[in-house]
C-alpha cells in the first residue's frame, strides 16, 4: 500500500510539472550547429561579397577578349600569355620581391629585438604598456600622411640634409636620400615594423620566464637561450608578422609611387596603368597572378609553422 502511495505522489508531481510546462513554455534552444553558423555569418557575408565575388569576377574577366571599345566574353589565354612573356612584368615582380625581402629582413630584425626588449627586459607592466603605446603612435595618422612626411625630411633641401651640412658632415646635400630605393625602404620599414612587433611580442609574452632560467641553469649561453628557446617559441609570431609585411609590400602602390620618384614600379601600379587605359582583362589577369603568387608565398611560410594550431593555444 505504501509503495502505491509513493508511486501516486510521484506521478502527481510529474503531472504538475507537465502542467507547469504548458503554462510557461520552455525556451527552445537552437541546435549547436546553427549557433556556430550564425556566429561566423557576418564575417562570411562580408568576405563573400567583398572578396570572393570580385575575385571570381576578375577570374572570369581575365579570360575575356577586349579592344579599345569594349569587352568580349571569351575564354582565351592571351592575357596571361602577354603578361608572362613581357619583360616588364618580370622586372616589376623582381623589384617588388627585392623590396619585400629587404624590408622583411629589416622589420624582422627590428621587430624581434623591440619585442624582445619589451617582453623580457621591461619588468613593469605599466612601463611596457606605455612603450607599446609609443610604438603605435605613428599609426594614429594615415599611412599616406606618414609616407609624405618623409619628403620634407629626406629631400635635397630637407631637414636631414640641412642637419648634415650644418654639422659639416657633408658639403653637398645627399641625393640618394629621397626618390630612391633608399627612401622607399625607409618608408616601408617605418610603416610596417609594428606589424612585426605585435605578433612577435604576443608570442613572446606567452613564454614562461622560468624557461629562460631553466635554460641558463642547464648551461645555455645568451645565444643558446635565443636559438633553443626564444626563437622556436616565437616562431608563430615571426611567421604571422612576416606574412603581414610581405603581403603589404607586395600589394603596395602608394609608397613606391611617391617615394621612388618614378624610378621603380610596383605590381599594383602596373595594374592601375592598365585600368586607367580601360584594359580590364589584362588587369584582371595581372591581379590573378599577383593573388596566386602572394598566396603561394603565404602558403610556404605557413608550412614553417601551423599557425592555426598555434593561434588556438
Amino acid at each position, binding site marked *: 500500500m505504501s509503495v502505491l502511495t509513493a508511486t501516486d505522489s510521484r506521478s502527481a508531481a510529474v503531472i504538475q510539472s507537465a502542467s507547469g510546462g504548458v503554462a510557461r513554455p520552455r525556451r527552445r534552444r537552437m541546435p549547436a550547429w546553427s549557433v556556430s553558423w550564425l556566429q561566423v555569418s557576418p564575417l562570411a557575408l562580408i568576405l563573400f561579397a567583398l572578396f570572393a565575388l570580385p575575385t571570381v569576377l576578375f577570374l572570369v574577366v581575365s579570360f575575356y577578349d577586349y579592344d579599345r571599345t569594349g569587352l568580349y566574353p571569351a575564354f582565351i589565354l592571351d592575357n596571361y600569355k602577354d603578361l608572362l612573356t613581357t619583360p616588364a612584368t618580370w622586372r616589376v615582380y623582381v623589384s617588388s620581391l627585392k623590396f619585400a625581402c629587404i624590408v622583411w629582413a629589416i622589420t624582422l630584425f627590428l621587430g624581434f629585438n623591440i619585442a624582445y626588449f619589451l617582453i623580457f627586459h621591461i619588468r613593469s607592466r605599466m612601463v611596457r604598456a606605455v612603450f607599446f603605446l609609443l610604438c603605435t603612435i605613428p599609426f594614429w595618422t594615415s599611412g599616406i600622411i606618414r609616407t609624405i612626411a618623409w619628403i620634407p625630411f629626406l629631400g635635397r633641401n630637407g631637414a636631414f640634409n640641412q642637419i648634415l651640412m650644418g654639422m659639416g658632415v657633408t658639403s653637398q646635400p645627399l641625393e640618394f636620400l629621397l626618390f630612391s630605393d633608399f627612401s622607399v625602404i625607409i618608408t616601408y620599414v617605418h610603416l610596417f615594423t609594428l606589424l612585426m612587433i605585435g605578433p612577435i611580442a604576443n608570442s613572446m609574452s606567452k613564454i614562461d620566464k*622560468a624557461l629562460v*632560467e*631553466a*635554460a641558463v*641553469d*642547464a648551461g*645555455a649561453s645568451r645565444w643558446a637561450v635565443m636559438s*633553443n628557446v626564444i626563437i622556436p617559441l616565437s616562431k608563430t609570431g615571426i611567421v604571422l608578422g612576416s606574412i603581414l609585411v610581405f603581403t603589404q609590400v607586395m600589394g603596395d602602390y602608394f609608397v613606391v609611387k611617391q617615394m621612388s620618384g618614378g624610378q621603380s614600379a610596383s605590381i599594383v601600379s602596373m595594374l592601375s596603368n592598365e585600368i586607367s587605359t580601360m584594359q580590364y582583362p589584362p588587369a584582371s589577369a595581372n591581379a590573378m597572378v599577383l593573388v596566386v603568387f602572394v598566396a603561394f608565398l603565404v602558403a610556404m611560410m605557413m608550412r614553417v609553422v601551423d599557425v592555426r594550431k598555434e593561434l588556438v593555444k
Partner: protein
Amino acid sequence: MDTRYDVELVSVTKRYGATLAVDAISLRIPHASYCCLLGPSGCGKTTTLRMIAGHEAVTDGDILIHGENVSDLPPVRRGTAMMFQSYALFPHMSCLDNVAFSLKMRGVPKAERHKRAREFLELVHMESYAQRLPAQLSGGQQQRIALARALITRPRVLLLDEPLSALDPFLRGKVREELKRLQRELQITFIHVTHSQDEAMALADLMVVMQDGHIRQCAHPREVFERPISPFIARFIGSHNVLRTNQGPVAVRADRCRLGAVEDGPHVSGKVIAVEYQGSAVRVAVVTEAGDEVSALVPDQHFYRNPAEPGQPATLVWSPEDTHALVDA
C-alpha cells in the same frame, strides 16, 4: 675532496632597493642532507634558494658549495641544478630532448646525449614517454621529467622550488617518498623549499624555518617539533598550543593535552568551540577565558568514553614535563 659541508651560507643578504628580502643569514648544510627551507610566503626562502642557484645575485655575503666560494659564478659553474615550481619544461621539445638539453649545451653529440637521457628517464620510470611533448603528460609525469633534466647534470646540490605544490594530495605523498629515495640513492644534498610543515617533517634531515628574511630555527625536524624556540615556530609547525604564563610564553603539544579537571596539574580552562573527528584522534578546540584558542588531540577511544560538545565548558590538562618554555621573539 673532503668537506664537511655541501653548502655554506655566510651572512647572505638580499636587498631589492629598500626592501630587505634576506637578512644576513648563515647556514651550514652537512654532506648529503635533505634540507628543507620552510616558512610562510614572503619569508625569503625562495630568494635564498635562487641565490644558491645563482639566478639571483647576493647583495652581501658568500655562498660556498663543497668549500668553494661560488657567489660570483654563473649557475652552470656552481654544480647545482634547479627544479622549478612550474617545472619549466621546454614545451617545443620532446621529453628526451628536454632531459638531454644540458648535455646539448655542453656540446655532447646527439647519439651520446640521447643515450644518457634515456638512462635518466629510466631512473624516474619515464622511459616510455621519451618522444612525448610535455603538454601530453600529467603534472606528476612532467615533474619526473623535470627531475631527470635536473639530475642529468650530476649536480652536487639539487635545488627544488616547491616541487610538490602543483600535485594533488595523493600524488604528493608518492612523489615525496620518491624524492627521499632518490636523495638517499644519489647521496647528494637536496635543498627543498616548501611552505608545508608536513612536507618538511617527512623529508628533512635539516629543517630551516624562516620568517621575515631570517632563519628562526634550524635543526632536525624532531628537534624543531619537540623544542620549538619561539611562539612563531610553535604556531607555524602546528599541533602546539602557545600559552602565556607569568614566566613567559610556553608551548604544549596538542597531543599531550587531554580533557580533565583543574586539580590534575597544569591546565587551561575555557569553552569548547569545535570538535573535529580525525579518525585515530579527535581534535577538541577550546577558547580560553583570555581569548586564546587552544586545542587537544585526544585519542578516539579516550574521547568517546567521555565526549565533549561545542558550547560546554572544558579544561585542558597536561603533565608538567610537557610544558616547554619558549623565547619571546
